């Protein structure tokens, strides 16, 4: 049975973008617990900390310093404890080839960074529904 309160990790080096995503997630569903990381390295440290509960879903920016999103995704998918966590990757790029490649690497979804906070709401809302659908199908 799916638990009620989802935990969501947002990994983005831009503090404004982290805040925008968190606001969008709260607007979609205020019961979701959000926590953040400033880069891929910090994200992996958080995820590998066995005293912390794992997130149910990760939003991962591709372009970041200190271990970018692509490398972070590779590390997550190579780790047996983390690999089942769905990862939504996002980037300012609209490159179809990049999207295809990231999906092959195991990304649950690829999205181009929306232009405004309102658009983030709609994309986050649909991604969360797709996540719930996928999680429900596994039960």
């Amino acid at each position: 049975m799916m638990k009620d309160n989802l935990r969501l990790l947002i990994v983005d080096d831009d503090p404004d973008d982290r805040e925008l995503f968190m606001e969008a997630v709260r607007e979609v569903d205020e019961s979701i617990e959000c926590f953040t990381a400033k880069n891929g390295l910090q994200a992996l440290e958080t995820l590998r900390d066995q005293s912390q509960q794992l997130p149910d879903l990760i939003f991962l920016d591709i372009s970041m310093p200190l271990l970018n999103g692509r490398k972070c995704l590779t590390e997550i998918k190579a780790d047996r404890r983390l690999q089942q966590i769905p990862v939504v990757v996002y980037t300012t790029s609209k490159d179809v080839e990049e999207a295809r490649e990231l999906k092959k690497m195991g990304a649950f979804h690829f999205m181009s960074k929306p232009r405004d906070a309102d658009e983030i709401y709609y994309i986050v809302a649909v991604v969360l529904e797709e996540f719930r659908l996928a999680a429900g199908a596994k039960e």
Partner: protein
Amino acid sequence: MLIYIKNMVCLRCKMAVQSVLEGLRIEYTSIELGRVNLPTALLPEQQDKLAEGLQHYQLELMENKKQILTEQIKVTIMELFATPGQEMLLKLSEHLCNQFPYDYTYLSNIFSETEGTTIERFYITYRIERVKELMLYESLTIKEISYRLNFSSVAHLSHQFKKVTGQTPATFRKLCANEDFVWRTCE
């Protein structure tokens, strides 16, 4: 041959197209959301008259391939809500990729470029329009609608309804009791 028409969203739009075609004595095989099947190609003057006739109903004849693809994406999403139980059985992105021979990113880019907004926004906004229809024409309760349209809860539906419309479902229902209230935007 197929011709593509922008902004067809409902049965009334189909009836409008039918009326224009019949008024111009243009034979057709079938009329569906977003497109009409014609037995023969249109003459240039027929095309002009048809375009003019459709404009009267705020409908538009399309020739641009990106516009046509965008409209087909919209129709595919609208058709998801046409049959109870079909909504969101698959991931939206997967469903669209199954219908079109393109990656979701490509579809998303074309849609955003043509419409100025995202597929996700269109999907959610259209679903809320469907909520309104079910409230008004089938008199379903919010609970029944949330189940039918695959919302995770009544609270989720109410919250999203307010986000999109600025009103709660209860306020909307009260306003619609006033016959003069125009509730639908036929885009």
